[in-house]
């Protein structure tokens, strides 16, 4: 709650600084010419008062917990530290629970650590609040002291705002770096335990690791090939549905449909894209899969109740509007003059479309399909709900398969230990997924961009 109070105090400071700055500027204006409006001086003062403390608060808030934890860890009883890092993590979380009000009698050996933590937290709050308020006051005083008519407050304020705008656009880059570094770091640790080649080319996936060293059972095997083939199989099924249907729908809408039909059919199709994937997953698991199983039983085929087919079909339906709206854009950017050229020679519509429009639009369509593939590979909920967890190495769409995304979710839902290969494996899979989709997107976007430029 200290956090909220601090924010409130800063907000009050900010308003006060603005008013004081504006007032000061007004008084100055009576004796000399200002280089900016009074409100600019107010804004300048407010910004210098609140921005640095806010920034500090953000950084402080990010680093204080890890720092406190490491201090507590350093003072843990030796008996705990001996048991290795997992035990330490466990102890730390226990200490946190105890500090938050659980019964201290539970584990007397941790009592000193708990007291230590409570003390550190209190001290942290006190120091951080003090420093932040002091910084705000310092900023206020320093700026006010140099509030002179010659100072170009407007340029200064605009410079700061421009900096903030720039920082905002940098968040996207930070996100990419964040994703990449998080998966890289954990994946690196994973590859310290499991050979890269065993991971990339192994054919057995069973990530169950014995919980304790003395337990029997294998140490798990992490051959990701069944996941890759499963992902591929489902993506292929989805594409087999989405590409022809999406493309034909786009062609019909852009070349044949009357404006009236287009106005209704296009948004209707786009609704399909707006339906949450979890809804598709539910539909796949509870409606499509049973239908497929019954149909299979009817003609003597053994269809698994969680089949690649069910997941792939439904995913295909989900991707139809994605393919159709991208292809629609692409087809519409083929210049009318090419169509005229073909019609002028007496070609029918379908001849024009198949032999002139589509070849001209091909690069764009390829880009669209690549984006669709990337989407199919990254889709999680439909497969998690309808394709199952069994890591079968099979090309039979009627069997149950699992995918990279499903395994990431499965490995990371529930309790995690951050040094077990089981958890780390999820990040290694994440790395593969991220790199593959990133490459696909990158190339696809380039192709589409090049294509656009060609006709602009």
């Amino acid at each position: 709650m200290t956090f909220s109070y601090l924010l409130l105090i800063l907000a009050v400071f900010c308003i006060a600084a603005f008013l004081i700055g504006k007032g000061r500027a007004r008084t100055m204006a009576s004796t000399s010419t200002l280089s900016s409006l009074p409100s600019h001086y107010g804004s300048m003062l407010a910004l210098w008062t609140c921005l640095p403390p806010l920034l500090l608060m953000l950084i402080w808030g990010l680093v204080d917990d890890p720092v406190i934890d490491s201090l507590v860890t350093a003072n843990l009883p030796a008996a705990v530290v001996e048991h290795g890092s997992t035990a330490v993590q466990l102890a730390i979380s226990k200490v946190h629970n105890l500090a938050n009000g659980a019964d201290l009698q539970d584990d007397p050996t941790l009592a000193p650590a708990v007291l230590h933590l409570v003390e550190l937290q209190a001290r942290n709050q006190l120091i951080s609040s003090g420093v932040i308020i002091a910084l705000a006051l310092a900023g206020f005083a320093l700026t006010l002291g140099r509030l002179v008519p010659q100072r170009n407050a407007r340029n200064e304020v605009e410079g700061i705002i421009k900096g903030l705008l720039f920082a905002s656009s940098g968040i996207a880059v930070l996100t990419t770096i964040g994703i990449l570094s998080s998966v890289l770091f954990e994946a690196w640790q994973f590859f310290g335990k499991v050979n890269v080649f065993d991971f990339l080319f192994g054919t057995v996936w069973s990530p169950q690791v014995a919980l304790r060293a003395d337990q029997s059972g294998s140490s798990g095997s992490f051959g990701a090939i069944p996941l890759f083939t499963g992902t591929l199989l489902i993506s292929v099924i989805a594409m087999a549905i989405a590409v022809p249907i999406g493309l034909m729908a786009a062609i019909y809408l852009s070349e044949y449909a009357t404006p009236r039909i287009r106005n209704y059919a296009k948004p209707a199709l786009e609704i399909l894209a707006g339906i949450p994937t979890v809804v598709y997953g539910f539909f796949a698991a509870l409606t499509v899969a049973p239908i497929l199983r019954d149909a299979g039983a009817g003609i003597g085929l053994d269809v698994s109740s969680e089949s690649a087919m069910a997941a792939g079909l439904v995913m295909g339906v989900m991707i139809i509007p994605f393919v159709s709206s991208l292809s629609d854009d692409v087809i519409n950017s083929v210049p009318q003059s090419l169509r005229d050229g073909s019609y002028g020679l007496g070609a029918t519509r379908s001849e024009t479309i198949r032999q002139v429009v589509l070849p001209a639009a091909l690069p764009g369509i390829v880009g669209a399909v690549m984006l669709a593939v990337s989407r199919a590979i990254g889709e999680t909920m439909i497969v998690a709900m309808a394709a199952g967890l069994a890591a079968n190495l099979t090309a039979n769409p009627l069997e149950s398969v699992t995918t990279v995304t499903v395994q990431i979710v499965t490995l990371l839902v529930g309790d995690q230990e951050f040094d077990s290969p089981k958890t780390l494996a999820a990040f290694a899979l994440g790395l593969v997924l991220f790199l593959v989709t990133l490459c696909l997107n990158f190339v696809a976007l380039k192709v589409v961009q090049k294509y656009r430029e060609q006709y602009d």
Partner: protein
Amino acid sequence: MSIIENHKTDGQPFSENPKLKARDVRVFYGEKQAIFDVSLDIGANEVIALIGPSGCGKSTFLRCLNRMNDTIDICRIEGEILLDDENIYAPKMDVVPLRARVGMVFQKPNPFPKSIYDNVAYGPRIHGLVHHRDELDEVVEKSLQRAGLWNEVKDRLHAPGTGLSGGQQQRLCIARTIAVDPEVILMDEPCSALDPIATAKIEELIDELRENYTIAIVTHSMQQAARVSQRTAYFHLGQLIEVNPTDLVFTTPEHTLTEAYITGRFG
């Protein structure tokens, strides 16, 4: 200049040996009328030039002659256009064979993004005009020769047509049109995007093509009209003002509007 009420076209709009006959053609774009009661014959094996200021409807009229306006949703056409005495706007008329008979060359060269060979072969292929590769090769070569492009491209028939220069591209489009062997060729300002040398080549080509085809050409350039055509039709604000043999139009125009245009008082 306002629209002249019920203007009767001056000069000789009708021909003794007509290939195409337009009668009282009116064209509307939505609410707006673009062409007012135009009646005009286009004689067999003649080159007729359609001239007039921008937006006068000459291109619109040209596009009516092979129903290219069908591709524009809001466009509506009244009146009759007869090709060999057959109304091309009759309900049962199919535009596909019509356009095979009345080919068109556009203002901007628009080669397909295919090879030079495939550009020319496109028409014969879709219409099923040839059945063997040899025949097709022959048609392609002949068409390119007639379009005066053969010598320039015979070594790179399978290079993309879009890689040619503007003038070459336009001749490729002409070759593409004559490969179907149409009866009439419509040309919509075929040289407006080209340099003078390329223009001269195309004009030469039009003159040669006259032996076998009927040609209607829309042009912005009065010199071009004078050079290539036998008859000239002057359009003004959607009306056909005057049609006369070309030399007459440029020397002794009948109508004051025509005179004003060719003497450069507007355009």
